[in-house]
């Protein structure tokens, strides 16, 4: 831990008192516990950059808890703080909503269709429970119909894309409340 504090001191050019060091340890533990891969803060009183090697995805962090730790670590008001937490592969800046919904995003470019064919009932309705691997929709690309499977199990809360709409790579299609 001493080695880490040295690195933080060097990176942030901040003189640390024993009390602040404790707060920083808490911050580091909090970040690690929530699977944050990278953490960057740029404030008038504190500049810090932490990078952990290889963590699992953690889409939701408790923003209020984080703000509290930051206030303790730096001692200045949180008003000017600009903290960005990147959580592994599932990086979402706006991820921490009260709902904790997970978006299913388009893996390809094409045209979104909610039903297997025109006039047929849609693959899923709002409120349906879906499993990982269950087909949610079709995206047509180059005259081929690609079945898009859910990567999360839970309840379909929102259908974000409209049938017949062109979608790009990474575009949100559905919002699912994970089980």
């Amino acid at each position, binding site marked *: 831990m001493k080695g880490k504090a040295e690195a933080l001191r060097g990176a942030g050019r901040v003189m640390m008192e024993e009390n602040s060091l404790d707060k920083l340890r808490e911050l580091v533990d909090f970040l690690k516990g929530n699977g944050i891969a990278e953490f960057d803060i740029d404030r008038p009183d504190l500049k810090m950059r932490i990078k952990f090697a290889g963590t699992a995805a953690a889409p939701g962090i408790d923003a209020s808890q984080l703000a509290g730790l930051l206030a303790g670590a730096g001692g200045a008001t949180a008003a000017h703080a600009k903290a960005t937490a990147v959580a592994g592969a599932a990086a979402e800046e706006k991820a921490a909503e009260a709902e904790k919904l997970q978006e299913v995003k388009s893996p*390809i*470019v*094409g*045209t979104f269709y909610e039903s297997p064919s025109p006039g047929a009932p849609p693959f899923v309705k709002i409120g349906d429970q879906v499993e990982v691997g269950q087909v949610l929709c079709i995206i047509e*690309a*180059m005259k081929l119909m690609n079945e898009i499977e859910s990567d999360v199990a839970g309840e379909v809360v929102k259908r974000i894309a409209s049938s017949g709409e*062109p979608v*790009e*790579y*990474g*575009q949100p299609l559905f919002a699912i409340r994970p089980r």
Partner: protein
Amino acid sequence: MFRKVLIANRGEIALRVISACKEMGIRTVAVYSEADRNSLHVRFADEAICIGPPRSAESYLNVPAVISAAEIADVDAIHPGYGLLSENANFAEVCRASNIKFIGPPPEVTRMMGEKSTARQTMKKAKVPILPGSDGIVESEKDALEWAKSVGYPVILKAVAGGGGRGMRICRTAEELPGLYQQASSEAAGAFGNGDLYMEKFIERPRHIEFQVLADEHGNVMSLGERECSIQRRHQKLIEEAPSLMVSPKLRAELGATIQKCLKDIGYWNAGTIEFLMDEDGKIYFIEMNTRIQVEHCVTEMVTGIDLVKAQLRIAAGEKLSDIVTKPVAITGHAIECRINAEHPEKFTPSAGKITAFNVPGGNGVRVDTAQYAEGVVPPYYDSLIAKLICHGKDREESMNKMQRALSQFVVQGIHTSIPLHQKIFADAEFRAGQFDTKFMERFFERQNKTPPPEEGHFDPNEPIR
């Protein structure tokens, strides 16, 4: 003329094509990877579609993703730029099958000229001089000696099954040939399991000369003169210029006419470049053809006044060359281009990251093609070219002086660039005299290692401003 064009590329060339389209009233569609979300080519296109994650293989080289984007955007044509999918015959075929016009030659021609031996045969048949080669295995030392005698020394022995410099020997005299033949053959047998060798004429100090061509889809072909690209490091061009000091008007006219006939015979369409090596005696030999627009097309534009990208669009839309280039091609003045790369100017390590200051030089005869900007990000996933600085003057001396002035005002902070390297090259006596060849950079580095570092108070515009 096309209503809408998709640009299957990124960076400065994507912006170049988008700009040409805008000037012609054509709607533009940009495609981008997640790493390029804030790129200028995305910002300045009329529509933009994200096609994949940062890696090129999953985005810019992803044929289904590009074609799918073209379909949902309902475009008439795709401009492939340079690199990426521009010389991919399979991609051109998929475009054709999808009823989207590929702005370039037909896939069959791309395929033919992309294959080294068929390209050589095609040129040979058309009486374009090619680098003499044994065109087959040299069975014995005796055969090797005979062949070398007919072609003239120096020659190079190469492994048929090989690559990476193994099984290769340069031979300068008949005395050393038998021994070198044995060495090359054993090395090749050891490295590739096949000791067969072929031979080629070897040029000690070649100059790289290339010719720009335009061809319409009605059988008309035109040569727009040459560029010299001898300033290279590890086979990557750093500086290009037009015209070449080594090409006389007579050679330009003769070679231009020969190329014209050859490309007409093979049914070439759109823009292309034919690359040659020139030996110490001024003899010129074909090495390969690039069936696309090139990075350094700008120097030709500056000396001829012809917009090559607009010509590409008009040719693909079916126009005749005589309506696009209405006067005989005249070379006026001299133009030089510096490729500004995001890399350390001495270590050549790539320098990705955020640009914190970006001041682009301007002025009479100074052109900058770039898609970077202050606060812009250079991602680590793609090639390091971030800008092209082109200066045009009434002669080589004036363009070099303009380039020095422009380089001194080109400020890029936050990343390393090759600007300081270019500044040193333009102060170098051998470069200024124009008496160089493709080994120039090796000699330049040797000279650099011998000179002491600059004295105190030396102003470097790329030092962070305090």
